């Protein structure tokens, strides 16, 4: 079991969360080329090691999180709210 330290709720089992995917995708502008959109939607780095990924606390606070986790050992380095403004709020309330 992976334990994810939700910044809103505290540390919980990963079974409370839903895995999203790669958190580093930058979607291109609406008028970008088909090639750029294909790359953003379909192609992935598929990192073996630490990666930033999104998780949804679907059976908890229902907030989206960015988790830095190893895809080999499942060790977690950091958990932050997805939205940068919420990251600031969490930081200020510490």
């Amino acid at each position, binding site marked *: *079991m*992976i334990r994810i330290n939700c910044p809103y709720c505290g540390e919980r*089992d*990963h*079974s409370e969360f*839903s*895995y999203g*995917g790669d958190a580093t995708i930058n979607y291109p502008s609406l008028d970008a080329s*088909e*090639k750029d959109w*294909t*790359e953003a*939607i*379909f*192609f*992935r*780095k*598929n990192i*073996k090691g630490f*990666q930033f*990924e999104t998780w949804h606390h679907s059976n908890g606070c229902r907030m989206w999180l960015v988790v830095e986790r190893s*895809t*080999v*050992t*499942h060790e977690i380095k950091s958990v932050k709210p997805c939205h940068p403004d919420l990251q600031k709020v969490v930081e200020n309330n510490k």
Partner: protein
Amino acid sequence: MTKFNAWNVIKNGLNGQSYWTRQWRDPEPKSSYDVVIIGGGLHGLATAYYLAKNHNIKNVAVLEKGWIGGGNAGRNTTIVRSNYMMPGNHEFYEHSLKLWENLSHELNYNVMFSQRAHVSLFHSPGAKDSVSRIYNIMRLHGTDAELWDLKTLKKKIPHLNYHNSRFPILGAAVQKRAGNARHDAVAWGYARAADTLGVDILQNCEVTGFTRKNGNIESIQTSRGIIKGKKIGFAVAGNTSVLWQMAELGNLPIESHKLQAFVSEAVKPLLDQVVVYGVGGAHFYISQSDKGSMVFGGDLDWYKSYAQRGNLPMVQDVAEAAMAIFPSLGRIRLLRHWAGVMDMTMDGSFFICKTPISNLYLNAGWNYGGFKASPASGWYFADLIANESPHNYVQNHNLERFEKGINIDERGAGPDPKLHG
């Protein structure tokens, strides 16, 4: 290599089994080969065999970082079927099933292929319509497919839970020619047959880098020295992205996810078919091995991972599905469970294609379905490497299909790899 036949069995029986030779050689790597296949799983070994057998290309090496059959070849639930509906897929998997039907004779090795029927239960009128459509498409293409009503199903498999009120069993979609096989025997059979034709199988030979020259890959750095290959094929599903980036080729429409499988203690004959609790219900599949163990599995672990070990919530999930459909398993003990790393692709279909490097060929993206596909995968990958152009069946199984908008998405689940189970 001593052939397996009645005469040799009798002769060795009378001579203390002393005349058998080893199944395949353990050669030192040569400095160069016509074709180097990276990955000594079922797909790599089958490719080497068909290169030698169908295309007379015998100066071939198969590089395996561990031992053959030690990756996903030994981490599956051994189910063989061809119930696919998308153009390209149904022809491909049907050809694979036909190869399975003659595989033991072809390889002179008993792969214990057992056509015991693949029974997909359905649990709602919508699920029945959906699966009927798929099985009708199969029939139109000459693949065997039938629907069993509840009366037939109860007669064939009386001990399913027919009183499940959440997912009532309404019947089943059945492919009678489908079944299962012994996975180790398939790896060993292909290795032995390929070796007999002159293929070098190089175990404990891990690829660590590539040397490029004029845009091509000139040589491969391995833990057993530098090996040159005129043509190079990747068949390393699970770790495709790692090798792809080692060749500096960027991103792929693949994520690596792990899938667990489970084996129980051996019991007396309990189940004659492969049963799937999957259409409009949960996701669970089960069969009984010849040894008597119940072999079963369920969904992916739901998060990206290269770890070959499973998580416990999924063990519970699979056990719950087992109890929902097969309550008589309640007292049975789990012996082992393990996880394999899958190439989950953006549309759930595989790749047998050329790559941006002109002497590099890709075989990848087998999702849940690598085991049953292995004979045809080897067949068409060898064909691509030998003839430089893809066969009609796999002409769209390439990396360009996403940009062209011709995704081969059996489930219609969209570009989220974990949903294509």
